[in-house]
């Protein structure tokens, strides 16, 4: 016998040789010439008979002989189909005989095809539409497509926002940077990274370590200026820059900046500082030599002229979380924010350095005031109860989980409060508040029911 390749062994022993009927060779194949055979001769006899009966037809089936018997059911529903794979499996001689074309035996695909064949064109179109819809949803939400959609300037617009996170505060120069400090940094950075990945923003982590950067004076905490400038250069598509201190935590990552603030900037901000004025700044400026816009309490009233958005806490401006818009105005502000003459006269009073300098500028410079707007503190900068706590809990200042405040700023936690403790509890609270539906089902329904029924608390 000559074969182009050696026949492969089958699990039962022996050789399966498709299309080969000669049974003269093969080590374990019993042959009639084999005298010492103890196998039941009946079986072999029947096999031989069968082979003789339908010689050339490679089926050993005794049932379903004939085309119609085999295909009756299928013909009544659809066109017949031949499946070579199945036939091949049936070639195994010693296998119990099966009906190759029975309905129960049809593969799922075949049955589906049957259904499809019986279906009308309109229904097919509808199903196709539904299928495409589902595919679109899957494609959009489980692939990076949604990320790029949200990021693109003319779609989601995520590229217009850059978050600057001030990390490595002090850099371990003034005080020891221990495990807790590292943990705070890790959590804070991860929180922002997840947020920007979700919404397609950019994140710039800057190093706030204490250094003597300038030859003849300390400009600590005016580094903000340099970092904002660098980010404007690095991200040419950025329109808004959001400065965040390290001790902040985005509690509601499902809020996008666009939805939360910028799509309706005019509705959220207030430009008349008299609405909440802890510093008692006289507003508006009424010097007679100024124009109407400078004397107006709300500037020109156009939300697009707002270039600086910040919030006020119990003691005035807070620069733990603020927004600036790329504009010539911003260049000017960054330029005059630090001035040696002002610094020389005021540095003893300026406890909060650049924050006080900004207050000074806001108070004295009409051009600054015209383009500054304030957000209610809890929109971008909620405080934990430990901060600004002199007058107890204030609904304007302090975080409230029922209102799902956007961001918590643990301002001043490094002075006598437990930064890591606060960070940890807010992190856990944020996870708890933003559980997914399955977790909600498990924890708020199943676990509660189980406890009611059995009286045992269950931990899932």
């Amino acid at each position, binding site marked *: 016998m000559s074969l182009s390749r050696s026949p492969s062994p089958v699990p039962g022993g022996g050789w399966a040789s498709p299309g080969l009927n000669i049974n003269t060779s093969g080590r374990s194949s019993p042959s009639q010439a084999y005298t010492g055979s103890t196998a039941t001769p009946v079986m072999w006899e029947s096999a031989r008979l069968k082979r003789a009966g339908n010689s050339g037809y490679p089926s050993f089936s005794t049932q379903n002989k004939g085309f119609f018997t085999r295909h009756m059911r299928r013909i009544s529903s659809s066109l017949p189909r031949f499946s070579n794979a199945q036939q091949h499996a049936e070639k195994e001689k010693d296998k119990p005989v099966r009906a190759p074309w029975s309905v129960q035996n049809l593969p799922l695909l075949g049955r589906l095809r049957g259904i499809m064949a019986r279906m009308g064109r309109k229904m097919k179109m509808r199903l196709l539409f539904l299928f495409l819809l589902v595919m679109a949803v899957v494609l959009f939400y489980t692939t990076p497509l949604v990320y790029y959609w949200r990021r693109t300037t003319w779609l989601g617009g995520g590229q217009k926002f850059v978050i600057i996170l001030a990390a490595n505060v002090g850099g371990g120069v003034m005080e020891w940077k221990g495990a807790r400090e590292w943990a705070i940094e890790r959590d804070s950075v991860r929180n922002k990274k997840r947020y920007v990945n979700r919404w397609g923003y950019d994140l710039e982590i800057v190093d706030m370590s204490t250094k003597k950067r300038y030859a003849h004076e300390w400009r600590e905490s005016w580094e903000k200026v340099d970092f904002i400038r660098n980010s404007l250069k690095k991200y040419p598509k950025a329109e808004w820059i959001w400065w965040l201190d390290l001790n902040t935590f985005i509690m509601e990552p499902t809020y996008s900046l666009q939805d939360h603030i910028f799509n309706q900037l005019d509705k959220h901000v207030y430009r008349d500082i008299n609405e909440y004025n802890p510093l008692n700044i006289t507003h508006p400026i009424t010097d007679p*030599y100024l124009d109407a816009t400078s004397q107006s309490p709300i500037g020109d009233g156009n939300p697009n002229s707002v270039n600086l958005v910040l919030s006020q806490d119990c003691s005035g401006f807070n620069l733990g979380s603020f927004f600036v818009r790329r504009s010539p105005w911003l260049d000017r502000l960054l330029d005059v924010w630090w001035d040696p003459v002002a610094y020389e006269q005021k540095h003893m009073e300026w406890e909060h350095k650049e924050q006080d300098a900004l207050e000074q500028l806001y108070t004295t410079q009409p051009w600054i005031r015209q383009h500054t707007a304030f957000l209610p503190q809890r929109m971008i900068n909620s405080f934990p109860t430990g901060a600004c706590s002199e007058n107890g809990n204030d609904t304007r200042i302090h975080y409230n989980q029922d209102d799902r405040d956007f961001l918590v700023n643990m301002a001043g936690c490094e002075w006598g409060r437990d930064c890591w403790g606060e960070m940890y509890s807010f992190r856990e609270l944020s996870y708890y508040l933003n559980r997914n539906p399955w977790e909600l089902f498990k924890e708020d329904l199943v676990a509660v029911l189980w406890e009611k029924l059995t009286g045992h608390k269950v931990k899932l």
Partner: protein
Amino acid sequence: MHLAYHSRKASSAPPFPRGAKMPGLRRSRLKVIALAGFALLTLLYLVTKPNGRHTPYKEYTPSGRPPVVVLTVLDEAKYSSTYLEAIKENRIQYAEKHGYKTFFAKVGDYDMNNAPSSWTSVVAARHVLTQFPDCRYLWFLDQNALIMNPQRTIEAHVMDPARLDEGMIKDYPVVPPDSIIKTFSHLRGRDVEFLLTQDKDGLSSGSWVLKNGEWARFFLETWFDPLYRSYNFQKAETHALEHIVQWHPTILARLGLVAQRTVNSYSTGDHGEAYQPGDLAVRFIDCSTPSACEKEAEPYIAQSRAAFQSS
């Protein structure tokens, strides 16, 4: 079984039935058109969606009426009224000739928290921008100065970008001789918003031209900062100007330094370049007392009157 005959068909064939009025607009095509329109609308929505409700912020551009406002601060307490009248007349004549406006402020007009009275020029300039929001240029000229050449105009002979491109002093120490801060070498004439001259002592704040706009407001308000006024600069607003020009690049980047005689000739050559006939203006800066200044000005007043009459 008998059936009635069909009624006879009309011999003229009925017109081919059309569903739609317009030919060519079949249902299938309508569908395609509707789909395409929908896609187009979606695309339009996507493109125009951001900030659709508000027009983006644009700086107000002055229309240029009047083209120039000439500002002078008068010290009525120290100088005689005849002298001041002559000074005012000189400015008004010049302004009338070119369709400019004048603005005369008086020392003491503004509350400046006990700052030296020379600061009045800065706050008065800010007042001019309020009074004339559409003026293109503001020319501040010191009181002890006269416009000598009525033919020369600010927009054509001083602030014209092409002329500035040629005449600007670039890459030169802002405060001579040894300031390490130099005027930008890549500055172009059309970027200049503030035209200034130097004399032998440094920057001269007795005659300068400012282009109206947001930058001008920012600049004047920054210059007038209370912390500068309270700092006791030796030469008050002049030194404050030197300070902000050197420390704040947004200001230096708009500063055009030109030859002194463009707007700021001196009557004598001791402190700067001396006046030559044909110069736009002359200033009397060596006089120590008001009466000395008035005396020094007398021949120039006569000259300028003659010049204005002949022109």
